[in-house]
C-alpha cells in the first residue's frame, strides 16, 4: 500500500487525467475529421459532381408517371388508313377489330372519319388522307402524311409553340389532354389514364369493364371458375407466372436454408472441440466452413448456374452451399457452449451414445438452431430475389426483365410491392414461429445472446 500511495500523488493523477482528456479530445476531433476526409474522397471517386449531369430527368418522369398511369394508343396506319386501338400499344392490350373505347368513334367505312375525343374540347380526327387536331385556345392543326413529301403540317398563323415540334418527316404535339405524333408511316394518339390497366381482366375477357358487384353476382351463379380462369391467365399482368415466381423464390429460400441446416449439423459436431477428438479433422472441417463462407454467394451462384442452368434449383443450391458454411460455424460454436452436466446426467442412466446426443445435446442447441434457421429463412428470401435476378429464376427474374424493357414501370412497381410484402410476411412469420417454438426466448436471454458478439452472425 505504501508503494501505491507514494506513486499516486495528486499531481501525477492530475497529469494522467489531463493526458487522458487530451487524448479523448483529439480522438473526438480526429475521428470525425477522418470520416469527413474519407467521404470527400468517395464523393470525388464516385464522380458525384458529374452525376448531376448524368441524371436522366426524362427517365425519372417516365418512371414516375408510368407507375400510376397508363396510356391508350390510337394508331392510324398511313399506308392503308386502318385504325387500331391498343392499351400501352401492346398487342395483348389491343381492342378487337372494329371495337373501341367509347371516347373513340371509329370510321364507318373507308372514306369515313375516326374521331378521338381527348376531353375538354380536344378533338383529333383521322380523316381519309389527313389528320386534324383541334386544340382549344390555339386552333386547328392539320397534317397530311404522304410517302413522297413526308408530313406536311398546317399550323395556325404565328410562332410555333414549344409543345409542338415540326420537321419535314414528323409532327409531334404534346398537350395536357394527350399526345399526337404523325410520321410518314403512321399517326398515333396517346391518351393518359390513371390506374393500372387491365389488372383483373384483359379486353378479350367477357368480364372486362364489369363492376365488382356484377362479377360477384356472376361468380355466385356458377361462373366462378371462368372468372378465375380469366383473371389467372391475364396476358397483360400474368398473375399465374407472378404467383409461380413468388413461390419459386420462397422455395429457393426454404430449400436452401433447411438444406444448409441439415448438412451443417453433422459437420458442426465434427468441428466442435468437445465432440471431435481428432484435431486435424476438426481443422479441416473448420477451414471447409471458412471456405464456403469466404467464397461469396455471388461466386457460388455463378459456378452453380454453369452446371445446373437457370432456375430455382440453382438458387436453392447457391443458398445451401453458402449457408452451410455459416451454419456450420454458428452450430459448432453453440455445441462448444453446451452444458456437460446434462450429458453426464443422461449417460449416468446408462444411455448409449446416440441417446446421449438425442437427449443430452440436441435439446440444448435446439433453440439456437431454430432461431438461426428462422433468421436466415427470412434473410434468404431477400437473397433468393437477388440470386434469382443473377441466375434467372423467381420474382428476381421477372423484375429484371420488366426493368430491362424500360417501359413497363407499372409492372416493376407491382413486383416491388409484391417483393416487399413477401419479405415482410416472411419476417413476421419467422418472428412468430420463433416466439412460438422457442419459449425460452424472452427479452433477457435475447440480450445475453446479442452481447455475445462472436456467436452472433448477421444474415
Amino acid at each position, binding site marked *: 500500500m505504501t508503494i501505491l500511495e507514494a506513486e499516486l500523488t495528486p499531481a501525477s493523477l492530475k497529469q494522467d487525467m489531463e493526458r487522458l482528456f487530451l487524448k479523448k479530445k483529439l480522438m473526438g476531433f480526429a475521428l470525425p475529421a477522418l*470520416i469527413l476526409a474519407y*467521404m470527400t474522397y468517395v464523393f470525388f471517386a464516385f464522380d458525384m459532381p458529374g452525376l448531376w449531369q448524368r*441524371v436522366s430527368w426524362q427517365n425519372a418522369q417516365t418512371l414516375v408517371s408510368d407507375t400510376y398511369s397508363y396510356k391508350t394508343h390510337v394508331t392510324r396506319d398511313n399506308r392503308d388508313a386502318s385504325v387500331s386501338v391498343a392499351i400501352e400499344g401492346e398487342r395483348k392490350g389491343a381492342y378487337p377489330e372494329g371495337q373501341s373505347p367509347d371516347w373513340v368513334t371509329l370510321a364507318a367505312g373507308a372514306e369515313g372519319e375516326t374521331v378521338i375525343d381527348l376531353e375538354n374540347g380536344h378533338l383529333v380526327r383521322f380523316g381519309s388522307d389527313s389528320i386534324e387536331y383541334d386544340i382549344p385556345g390555339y386552333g386547328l392543326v392539320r397534317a397530311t402524311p404522304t410517302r413522297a413529301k413526308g408530313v406536311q403540317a398546317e399550323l395556325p398563323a404565328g410562332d410555333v409553340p414549344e409543345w409542338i415540334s415540326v420537321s419535314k418527316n414528323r409532327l409531334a404535339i404534346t398537350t395536357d389532354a394527350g399526345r399526337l405524333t404523325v410520321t410518314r408511316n403512321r399517326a398515333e394518339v396517346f391518351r393518359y389514364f390513371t390506374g393500372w390497366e387491365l389488372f383483373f381482366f384483359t379486353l378479350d375477357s367477357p368480364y372486362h369493364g364489369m363492376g365488382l358487384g356484377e362479377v360477384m353476382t356472376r361468380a355466385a351463379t356458377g361462373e366462378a371458375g371462368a372468372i378465375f380462369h380469366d383473371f389467372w391467365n391475364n396476358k397483360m399482368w400474368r398473375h399465374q407466372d407472378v404467383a409461380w415466381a413468388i413461390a419459386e423464390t420462397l422455395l*429457393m429460400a426454404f*430449400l436452401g436454408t433447411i438444406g444448409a441446416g441439415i448438412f451443417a449439423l453433422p459437420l458442426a459436431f465434427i468441428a466442435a472441440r468437445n465432440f471431435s477428438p481428432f484435431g486435424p479433422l476438426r481443422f479441416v472441417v473448420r477451414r471447409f466452413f471458412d471456405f464456403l463462407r469466404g467464397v461469396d454467394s455471388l461466386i457460388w451462384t455463378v459456378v452453380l448456374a454453369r452446371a445446373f442452368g437457370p432456375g430455382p*434449383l440453382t438458387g436453392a443450391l447457391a443458398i445451401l452451399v453458402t449457408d452451410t458454411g455459416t451454419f456450420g460455424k454458428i452450430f459448432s460454436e453453440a455445441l462448444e457452449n453446451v452444458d456437460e452436466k446434462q450429458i453426464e446426467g443422461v449417460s449416468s442412466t446408462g444411455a448409449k451414445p446416440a441417446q446421449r446426443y438425442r437427449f443430452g445435446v440436441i435439446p440444448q442447441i435446439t433453440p439456437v438452431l431454430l432461431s438461426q434457421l428462422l433468421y436466415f429463412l427470412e434473410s434468404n428470401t431477400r437473397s433468393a430475389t437477388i440470386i434469382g435476378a443473377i441466375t434467372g429464376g423467381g420474382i428476381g427474374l421477372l*423484375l429484371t426483365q420488366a426493368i430491362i424493357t424500360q417501359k413497363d414501370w407499372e409492372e416493376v412497381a407491382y413486383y416491388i410491392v409484391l417483393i416487399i410484402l413477401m*419479405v415482410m410476411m416472411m419476417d413476421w412469420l419467422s418472428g412468430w414461429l420463433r416466439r412460438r417454438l422457442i419459449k425460452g426466448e424472452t427479452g433477457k436471454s435475447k440480450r445475453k445472446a446479442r452481447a455475445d*458478439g462472436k456467436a452472433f452472425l448477421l444474415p
Partner: protein
Amino acid sequence: MADLTAAPLTTADIRAQYSEMTRRKRLYGGIILVVFVALMMAGFRTADGRNAGSFYDGITHVFDYPSEVLAEASEKAAELPGHLVNFFPALIETLNIAAASTLVGVVFGTLLSLLSTRGMAPWPRLIPLFRRIMDISRAIPEIVIALVLIFLLGGGPVPAMIAIAIHTAGALGKLFSEVNENASLKPVEGLESVGGSWGQRMWLGVIPQVGPNYVSYALLRFEINIRASAILGFVGAGGIGYELKNAMSWGQGRYDEAAAIFLLLFITIVVVDQISSGMRDRLINGAKA
C-alpha cells in the same frame, strides 16, 4: 380435491399416463417429421422440375467450370499477378461502395433508431411511422433499388451505394433500436434537467453508452455490404462484380481473369472477416471490462 383423495394415483396409473403422453408426443413428432420430409421432397422435385437443367445431370458437372477456370489460370499463371494489379482498382471501388454505404447507413440508422425508441424519441406519436420506414427499407432487396437507380442515373457506383445504404439504414436501425432499449435513460434525464436539447441529450447521453455495440454491428454490416456490392456490380453497378461479369461473358480465353477476380474477392472477404471479427471481439469484451 375430493376426487384426488377418493382415488389416489397408483404408480401404475402414473406410468400408464406418462407412457401415453410420451407415445402421443412421439406420434406428433413423427407426423411433423413426415410432413416436413414430404415438404422438402416435394419442394425439391418442384424446383428440379422448374429448373433449366436437372439436378442429376448437373451434379456431375459441378466441378467442370471451376476446373476449366483453374486449368486455364494455371496455364497462364505468369499473368496472374498482372491481373491482380489490373483489377485492384475495381476491388477498391467495391470496397468504397461498401464503406461509404455503411457510413451513410449508420448515420441514418442511428437517427431512425433514436426516433423510434421509447423514451428517446422526440415525437413519441411518430414511433410507429419510423418503425414502418425501417421495416420497409429493410425489406427492399438492394437489387431492386439499384436497378431502378441505374435506369435513372446510369451505371456506376452511386446507385449501388444508395441502394445498399437504404437497406443498411433499415437493418442497422432495427438492431440499434434494440441496443437503445437496453441503454440507461438516467444520463438523458440528467441532461434534460440541465436544459440539454434533444441533439445534446442523444449525443452526450445515449451515444457513449451504445457506441461500442453500434460500431460492432456496423463492422458486421460492412462485411455483408462488401458481398452485396460485389453482387450489385454484377448487375451493372461497377466494381469487381462488373469486371467478373465481363470476364465471364467472354468465356474461354479469359478464365485467367475470372480466376484472378475470384481470388481477389475471396481474399478480401476472408481478410475483412478476420479483421472485423477481431475488432468486434475487442469492442464487446473491452466494453464489458
